[in-house]
């Protein structure tokens, strides 16, 4: 295992994960940097880790959630999200991000991770099943459930 070839290539994916949790580019970049440094400190473990991608994802997610608590952000951003849906959507990138953030944040685990992996990273069912330790059938069922909730919530925000 090597930092350049096995760890750093995950940076962009981790950045998008952090961004979907924090909605802040600078904070998200800091979280990915901290993830990389933490992974480097624990480099002695690399060879014994079965799924390095899942391991990095977990570190990054925990760091992002910790930072979110420190930042004191609340989950309720209905006003921003509603404004995003009702105004011109394609012109308001921050608003769109806030909307998606809220929709994902309201999902329970592992549905939130599943939506991130499928709709942001574009992974196949097989890849998601490997990442989340689920069967492919479970992935299909959970995805159906997650998107159903998103639709329900999205339509509720419109009303």
């Amino acid at each position, binding site marked *: 295992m090597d930092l350049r070839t096995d760890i750093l290539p995950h940076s962009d994916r981790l950045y998008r994960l952090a961004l979907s949790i924090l909605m802040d580019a600078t904070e998200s970049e800091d979280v*990915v940097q901290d993830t990389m440094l933490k992974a*480097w400190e624990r480099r002695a473990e690399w060879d014994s880790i079965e799924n390095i991608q899942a391991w990095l994802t977990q570190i990054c997610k925990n760091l992002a959630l910790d930072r979110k608590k420190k930042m004191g952000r609340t989950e309720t951003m209905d006003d921003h999200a509603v404004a995003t849906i009702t105004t011109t959507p394609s012109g308001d990138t921050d608003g769109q991000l806030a*909307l998606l953030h809220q929709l994902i944040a309201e999902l329970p685990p592992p549905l939130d991770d599943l939506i991130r992996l499928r709709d942001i990273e574009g992974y196949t069912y097989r890849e998601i099943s490997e990442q989340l330790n689920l069967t492919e059938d479970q992935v299909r069922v959970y995805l159906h459930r997650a998107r159903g909730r998103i639709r329900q919530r999205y339509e509720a925000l419109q009303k």
Partner: protein
Amino acid sequence: MQCSIVFPLVTRINKMMDYKYIEQLIDRYFEGETTLEEEQILRKFFAQEGLPEHLQKWQALFAAERDLSAAHLDDTFHERILALTGEYHVKAQPISLHVRLRPLYRVAAFLAFAVVIGSAVEFSTGSRTESTQEQVAVQEQDELDVDEAKPLDIRSAELMTSDTLHIQ
């Protein structure tokens, strides 16, 4: 005249069929039944302006997915991490024998050049000396030959004349 009526009509029908297809895709998306390619079609479709009102409501959702999918760190991020971990070093490149010997090639070329020039100068100087000596020798031989070639009576006459002059 007919074309101006028919073409917009065909375009409109095509668009309506497209919208019908998109509506079906949206339903299948929320059922979790779309493929990755179909999900890409939805994101591309909702990147357009001027969509019909009943589809506009989904635009923010798919635009957000598209924007977040495209987000990435700046190009210097990897270098910063490598610097922070002390792993920033230029990887040693294997040097071929040819590259290693290149300075020696230059020295060898210079020496060869010097030898050629030196030889040329030496040859030039040596041949000039030899040719001068040869020229002198040839000249002397020519003079002797000229003397020997004169008729006997002329030579006697010359000798006599010189004797006569000497007596006088």
